[in-house]
């Protein structure tokens, strides 16, 4: 009995000592700053920074392999907090939000037929290019809404819309959209062209009542080509987000009715 007690106690002692030694000499030193940085990141794990999650980004920040300011969700406040911990300058970032560049709702645009397959944009697009008459427009099956970590996208009347207040600019929706019509734009820009169809006006008109015809009136009304507020891709006007237009009066003057002032949908969350 005594032998047993001594043996067990002895084994326990040896193990305890070796554990204590191992802890002292074999410890993997983790930079305490990683934990601190993780704490100031938003914890959304959205992946918008390009890393597997907030933890991975924090590690990269501390190791100095990632730029400070890549976290769209945290924005400037977060970058400043990280800068305080690490002593590195935050790269200036502007908050970016997603914009669905289409305004062809079911009532405004034609559908080529009845699609009753599964509710997924890529799958619908693989079925005869999708049921929408416009080959470039939003199909409205919500693939973007399904991947949004912030529930910022809602689909109504066959069109996806982003709630600007909820969007953290992670870009997941941009990748999910098979029609490539979502773009991350500066949150401060308020005037947008909501169309993605670069073909000639009459062709657009056949399929959509609100498609851009490439008439250049928006450009003219905003100070002409020199002002540089718009660029054109075929017969499609694009806002130059490095120098966005600010005069809201040009919106009503668009004959195609595809311009809008701050179209970001407010869901009232």
């Amino acid at each position, binding site marked *: 009995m005594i032998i047993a007690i001594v043996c067990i106690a002895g084994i326990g002692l040896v193990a305890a000592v070796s554990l204590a030694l191992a802890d002292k000499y074999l410890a993997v030193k983790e930079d305490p700053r990683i934990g601190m940085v993780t704490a100031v990141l938003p914890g959304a794990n959205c992946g918008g920074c390009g890393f597997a999650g907030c933890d991975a980004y924090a590690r990269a920040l501390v190791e100095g392999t990632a730029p400070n300011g890549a976290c769209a969700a945290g924005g400037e406040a977060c970058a400043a907090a990280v800068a305080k911990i690490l002593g590195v300058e935050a790269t200036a970032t502007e908050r970016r939000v997603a914009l669905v560049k289409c305004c062809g709702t079911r009532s405004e645009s034609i559908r080529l037929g009845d699609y*009753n397959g*599964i509710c997924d944009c*890529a799958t619908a697009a*693989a*079925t*005869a*290019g999708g*049921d929408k008459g416009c080959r470039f427009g939003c199909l409205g099956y919500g693939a973007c809404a399904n991947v949004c970590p912030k529930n910022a996208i809602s689909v109504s009347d066959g069109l996806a819309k982003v709630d600007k207040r909820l969007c953290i600019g992670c870009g997941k929706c941009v990748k999910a959209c098979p029609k490539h019509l979502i773009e991350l734009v500066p949150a401060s820009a308020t005037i947008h062209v909501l169309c993605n169809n670069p073909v000639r006006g009459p062709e657009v008109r056949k399929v959509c009542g609100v498609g851009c015809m490439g008439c250049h009136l928006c450009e003219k009304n905003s100070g002409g080509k020199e002002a540089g507020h718009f660029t054109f891709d075929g017969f499609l006007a694009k806002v130059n987000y490095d120098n966005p237009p600010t005069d809201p009066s040009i919106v009503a003057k668009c004959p195609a009715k595809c311009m809008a002032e701050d179209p970001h949908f407010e869901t009232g969350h």
Partner: protein
Amino acid sequence: MKTVKSKFKFKGGVHPDYNKELARDGAIERLPLPKELAVSMSQHLGAPARCLVKAGDFVRRGQVIGEKAGFISVCVRSPADGKVKAVEKRVGAAGAMADAVLIDTTASLPEDAPPPPVLAPMDWSSATREELLGRIEEAGICGMGGAGFPTAVKLNPPPGKRCEYLVLNGAECEPYLTADYRVMLERAPRIRLGVEIMRKVLGLPAVRIAIEANKPEAIAAMEAAFADIEGNVEIVVLPVLYPQGSEKHQIYATVGRVVPEPPALPIDVGCVVENVGTVAAIADAVELGEPLLERVTTVSGDAVATPKNVLAPSGTRYADLLEFCGGATERPAKVISGGTMMGFAVSSLDIGTTKTTSGLLFLSRRRVFQYSSQACINCGRCLRACPMNLNPAEISKAMEVDDVKTAEDAHVMDCIECGACSFGCPAYRAITQFCRKAKNSIRARIAAERAAAAAAKASDGAAKKEAK
């Protein structure tokens, strides 16, 4: 040469209404050259061809207008003389956008137009294997049955792999389609010549000609054409069962071998499967120097005035095919490119045919069922129907909530998208579409991983160079 019954019956399969009588007895008719052709640069699986012409160019019949881009790719030749009206992105039959060359065939060519290119006729018995393979490649031949795999690639097995069996696919198990059937009836001697050429290229494998039992006339025609052929040649009569025309099931039915999971190919079990139409095209390319510029397409369905088997240049707009068959008797509720089981619904009649357009079906309201999908009732019919031994119910349920991992674990990559599961589902679930969605996301993930690995390797290499 002998005719035998298939000894192997695969598990699963379904019996759709064949509806072949609509077009079966119509001899192949040649379509007069349409005024406009829309030739897609994406003719098959794999990389689309690179377009070589622009608006305003004159093209000659047989001129290469799209060069092959990549290994799994074939060139595209102009099916007619004419002037290029435009090169624009168009939706293809399978839904993806690709460059299409619009050719105005009524334009008169300028005096100094170069003569159309000619491929010299070859004597196959004296030509070398390489010469024959080269010809098949330059003639732009790809599988005409479905996916359109480049034939020259298929006939050139990688080192270490040998073709023991050449399986000729004359099953044509898709409902409505009769194009292959008519080719077997009317062009049997060409098929025989094609087989002899392919045998030479593949190193004299045994030949199995697979035909479903519901086509006795085709069996008789092939028996007559192959009666005096030397070597190990058999006509295998297959039981009537969909998807008998699938490559894997055909190999099982004729030689009893099972092709393992992808990425394994039929050549891994010593087989090469080729569609009968393709074999006839090979004979034309070699003996007559005629590139693959036209094909037989079955135009059928209950909304077509006179269903026909039409020999049309590739790029013929669907609208022209319909007009040639007397137009529609009523407004079609659904238009399908291909057969009803695996074909694609199309949304425009401006799309041009390709080398793989085996059929064009116009179905009336009465033939089209507007279903709405419901929850799975766990009846197990899809499991019984699946010829690949999958659990389609599980896959569809997983994909309903975007659970690609479960679908992958359920071997969704094995799915051949035959549609047998959706066909019998009493809850009208779009199971095959779920499988397709799963396969597409898995493929996209693999491609992204490969790209990331390649990028990492490249930046690694650059870093090492810098260090030096």
